[in-house]
């Protein structure tokens, strides 16, 4: 099967959806511009015209309300923002309207809107261009929150989100855009709320999401070398959250590490650990651990981001710490071939 990038998979999902249904529209600042939101919206306006694919003013709150209005009239809007952070201007429309609309009108009026939000990372994105707000969105009843890792998942989950009848927050980590995986050309969907068991092992359960799953994959490969075999669960969505799969895994392994890309307090990792304490108490053999950021805004400086962010090394270290393996026994290394603040050699800034 052909391999395409995450960004191409997103693009293909939108193309597919817009061909399947003329109800699908796509808009957002820069959607039809030459860069096409990191390539994800390229070609759309050419194929579907200016009525269904359009640019917008910098008016995040109104544009969200406009999407809701279109959605309650049978359209399936896809709205895009170049950064999650900009979308904080629209939380009234999101939380007071989109999330509650069908409920507060007694279930007679659904809001099938999909909101694509890009999470910045590295190259000095800093405090207001790299926030990880998955738990903020997940705590709002009435929203679904999807957060894919692989190109394959991105396409299948985005298609599912677009055709879901409820509002979906779709979080795309900037560093995943260049990563490739096998992606069928066909239209396929992945159900929201089912996590992905990326690796099987009986020693330890690692739950991760989005880009942190990529780091976790590296970590478990190294752990395998010292005889530690992990269940690695990629959440795929944080609301609904697939607690069942996690519980099943912890029942087997008795040990849990929850990895998150956000600051640690009130994170998705916290929620997973809380559920584990409540529901899997009898199986937990050790205190669970959280690999997440310090409770601080993201710094800009290259001199700080290396220690601010977690990666495979930190996951690895928590794992051997949890398992009581002495570090000197492992000798493992995670050598970085590229500067820590870029997704790949090809990246030269500026955003």
């Amino acid at each position, binding site marked *: 099967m052909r391999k395409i990038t995450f960004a191409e998979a997103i693009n293909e999902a939108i193309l597919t959806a817009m061909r399947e249904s003329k109800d699908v529209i796509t808009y957002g600042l820069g959607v039809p511009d030459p860069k096409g939101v990191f390539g994800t919206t390229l070609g759309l306006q050419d194929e579907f015209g200016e009525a269904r694919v359009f640019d917008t003013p910098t*008016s995040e*709150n109104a*544009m969200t*309300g406009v999407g809701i209005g279109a959605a309650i009239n*049978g359209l399936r809007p896809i709205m895009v923002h170049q950064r999650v952070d900009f979308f904080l201007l629209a939380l009234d429309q999101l939380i007071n309207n989109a999330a509650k609309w*069908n409920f*507060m009108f007694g279930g*007679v*009026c659904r809001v099938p809107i999909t909101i694509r939000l890009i999470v910045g990372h590295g190259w000095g994105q800093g405090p207001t261009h790299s926030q990880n707000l998955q738990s903020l969105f997940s705590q709002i009843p009435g929203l679904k929150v999807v957060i894919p890792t692989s190109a394959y998942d991105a396409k299948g989950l985005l298609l599912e989100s677009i055709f879901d009848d409820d509002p979906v927050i779709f979080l795309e980590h900037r560093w995943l855009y260049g990563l490739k995986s096998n992606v069928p050309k066909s239209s396929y969907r992945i159900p929201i709320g089912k996590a992905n068991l990326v690796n099987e092992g009986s020693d330890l359960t690692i739950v991760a999401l989005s880009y942190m799953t990529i780091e976790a994959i590296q970590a478990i490969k190294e752990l395998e070398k010292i005889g530690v075999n992990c269940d690695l669960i990629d959440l795929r969505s944080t609301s609904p959250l697939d607690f069942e799969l996690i519980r099943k895994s912890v029942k087997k392994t008795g040990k849990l590490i929850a990895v998150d890309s956000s600051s640690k307090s009130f994170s998705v990792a916290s929620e997973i650990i809380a559920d584990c304490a409540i529901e899997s108490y009898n199986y937990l053999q050790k205190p669970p651990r959280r690999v997440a950021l310090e409770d601080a805004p993201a710094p800009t400086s290259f001199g700080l981001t290396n220690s601010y962010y977690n990666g495979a090394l930190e996951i690895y270290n928590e794992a051997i710490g949890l398992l009581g393996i002495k570090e000197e026994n492992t000798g493992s290394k995670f050598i970085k071939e590229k500067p820590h603040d870029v997704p790949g050699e090809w990246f030269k800034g500026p955003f």
Partner: protein
Amino acid sequence: MNLSELQASMLRIRLVEESIANKYSEQKMRCPTHLSIGQEAIAVGVCSNLTNEDQVLSSHRAHAHYLAKGGCLNSMLAEIYGKVTGCSKGMGGSMHLIDKSVGFMGSTAIVGNTIPVAVGSALAMKIQEKKLISCVFFGDGATEEGVFYESINFAIIHNLPVLFICENNLYSVYSGLEVRQPKGRKIFEMVRAFGIESSHGDGNNVQQVSDYVELARDKILSGNGPQFLEFDTYRWREHCGPNYDNDIGYREEEEFLEWKKKDPLKDIFENKDLDLVKVLFNKFNAEIQQAHHFADNSEFPSDKDFQQIINS
């Protein structure tokens, strides 16, 4: 609709609202409730020019809009009573009315936040190539929200079939215009500078409202773009709840009396044909009494209803 039909519609709304005010102290309508008494002419003048497929969105003060658009009275009262027979099955209360069968698409409790939703409805109409308009009601206070400005901006750019109706009743809760907007601001003139066609009229003159809206709707449908209308009016009772509150000090009794003289219903109360008026009163009061009875005797939603809605 001729003048007397407009008047009848206003009278019906007035009587519904007064019945709510009268019965509110029974403590069976247990939700914040914003009455439109004194403001009926705008709702009726606007909606009398709309078809069932034209859409309306509204705010916390939505009863008159809902009824003028043809929303089911039983369902509205049942909603205010919190019953499962309510238009929102008891989930939303007085501030969350909906009747899609007549194009009343919803009202919400957050100031200004249905304005962009109405623009989105208009966007859908345009994309779906329907010859309809979307209309949104909001107060003078809502025009202070940035989303008001953003929404009009977008509607103009895309030449959307949307009619903005501003009911300027001088107050936002207990705060007068002087602490919220620049001296001498005329809302309809300001928005004209945004780039939208705009006019201003007497919101207590139902015929004038209707005439303006007829023209505006025609303009929209002939592709002249979104239209804005500001109407002056006055809320008679307290901001939220059934009582009068001119005594508490945020506005003067004289101001109220001045506006009471301009009662949008005064023609009907001064009508010579007393018999006709009486017939109308009786007819509406009977209907309203029946609707309260229906609401009061309906069931509350069950936990199962609740679960069904949140898991649907």
